[in-house]
């Protein structure tokens, strides 16, 4: 794609993200399932990239770690202010739609079809973007995903970290 086109699409997506109010009403209670699907789609694509080097060794353990981390993110989201939740849902929505995904990623492929290397390049491009919204997306997702992964005691072994327990937790 031409750089010029990409910038125009980027600006369009940025404008969509910025004018949250236009999309906000779309996200009603009835859309909860669709929201979860959008979020899962994006999380499933980004988690293996962001957690490269941190995930456990075997394929089975990796799958379990990815699934439990996706679930930890989904469980945590409702504690955020509604404003932040809506922003994240918009990001997940845009990244799961073909046109806006193209604008945000510069790729015709779905996120999950990109190589891990391409997904990391994408995240880096957001980090270094001149668009504030993409920088916020990078920082927000990075923190959310890493916090969800390292919040789980199952992933503390690599850190040689243990926490005291005064009774059984769950």
């Amino acid at each position, binding site marked *: 794609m031409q750089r010029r086109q990409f910038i125009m699409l980027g600006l369009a997506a940025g404008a969509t993200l910025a004018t949250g109010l236009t999309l*906000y009403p779309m996200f009603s209670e009835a859309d909860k399932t669709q929201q979860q699907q959008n979020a899962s789609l994006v999380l499933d694509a980004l988690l293996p990239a962001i957690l490269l080097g941190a995930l456990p060794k075997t394929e089975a353990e990796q799958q379990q770690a990815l699934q439990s981390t996706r679930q930890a993110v989904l469980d945590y989201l409702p504690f955020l202010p509604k404003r932040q939740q809506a922003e994240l849902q918009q990001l997940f929505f845009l990244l799961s739609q073909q046109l806006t995904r193209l604008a945000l990623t510069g790729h015709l492929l779905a996120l999950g079809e990109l190589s891990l290397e391409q997904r*990391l390049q994408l995240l880096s491009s957001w980090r270094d973007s001149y668009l504030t919204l993409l920088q916020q997306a990078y920082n927000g997702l990075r923190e959310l995903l890493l*916090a969800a992964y390292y919040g789980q005691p199952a992933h503390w072994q690599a850190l040689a970290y243990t926490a005291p327990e005064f009774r059984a937790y769950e």
Partner: protein
Amino acid sequence: MNDPIKTGLAKGWRHIDAATLTEDQQFEADVVIIGTGAGGGMTAEILTQAGLSVIMLEQGALWSSSDFRQQERWAYPHLYQDGAGRKTKDQAIAILQGRTVGGSTTVNWTTSIRTPKPTLDYWQAEFGLDFSAEHSLEPYFAKAAGRLHISEWQVPPNPNNAALKRGCENLGWQYTVIERNVHGCANLGYCGMGCPLNAKQSMLVTTIPAALEAGALLVSRVSARQFQWRGEHILQLDAVPVDQHYQPTPSVKLRFKARHYVLAGGAINSPALLLRSKVPNPSGRLGKHTYLHPSVISGALFRDAVSGHAGAPQSIYSDQFVWPKGDEAGFKLEVPPVHPVLMASKLTGMAELHAGMMQKFNHLQVMIALLRDGFHPDAQGGEVQLDADGEPVVDYPLTDYLWRGVQQAYLAMAELQFAAGAEAVMPVHQDAMLYSSWQQAKTAIAGLPLKTYRAALASAHVMGGCNMSADAAKGVVDANGSHYQLQNLSVIDGSVLPSSLGANPQLTLYALAWRNADVLAARLRG
């Protein structure tokens, strides 16, 4: 293990979990206190002991020692504002603030510091506030120290704090052993997740039980939405319960009526309630001048294990740079506890780079520098605004003046960490790398872009927004916390501070609350 809250509830303390209410309800008392942190908790004990009937309101839940678990994934969503995901409007600064019975005192790191004299001098010069001679806070610091077992920490500092001490010693920099509000502390290091041993003398285990014992009513999981007021008086407070994720939900309407209202929701939520209520604001300062002690972070790798998660989280600080001779931004040097989620989310980078740092977790020493905002024309703080849901959001501009402070702080922390024996230092900044010598770090730090999102910034201290002033034209409340326009409203929390403190706030707030609650009790009994 003994849980004084569960024991008290079993013997009849009055507590209502608003989330369980199914019908509209009205409550009445002499005084309604909104918020149960340092200000609200202290006020509740003093007013109940003065014989006044008191209702305490808290948006968080009534969690206590037998509920606390030493896991960030439980503590952050349940004990912190916005699930510990609170951030400034542009998302540049993360804000850690408590939201549970006891407020931030339930989750703070126990550091207890008297209000620095230069801060009091600044308040006097700029806001006409006199805390000298017979108005001194000293007697209240002493009372608070007695009530909350505040004393110098006698146990040797953990290696994370010891590095700060050693660096200061080697460089000839000032340092102080911290006073902590603990009694029977086992040196675990989990203060930020709620003390499982009731050793931390937070409001949750001291003043709030005392108020409940004296007959006060605690209503938890309730969100104060709006004051109804006419002329110079508040008529009632409208509130709603919160749901299991602490989101306000209008399932029932709750109405609180009192002779007097004490606002103690902290420096973000207190101004927000007054803004929602559209109270008179002739000074124009309501919700303005919100200070954060924006904090800069620096990581270092040591050959020996540091294990910054174990042991009292803060036992040493350095004031070497907090009151510079020139007019540059001063900063206080401290260390944070090093737990997995806090570190994973703050350390920059991702994938292998991030994973590699996390694998050195126990060898990671971490420093923070708290910028002293509010003392300079170019550091006038942020502003509390309301979003579409009426929830607060802090707009905090980072000025060039503050960015220069950020750079100075990176330099000071790196110099200190190398002086303490670090093998490598990494300023927590998107463009920084691991530097293996002070010279290399010094050159690299000078070139780091001083820009939003590049530097990781955090705040654990929120101050201002309802500032006190001797002159009504320059403040929201007077030196006693009495609101200038509404006769039956006092503000007793961190929002009354007219600048940041240059020190951790809890002891200042205990002393101010004690003093102002005494004044209020005398007035209401009068």
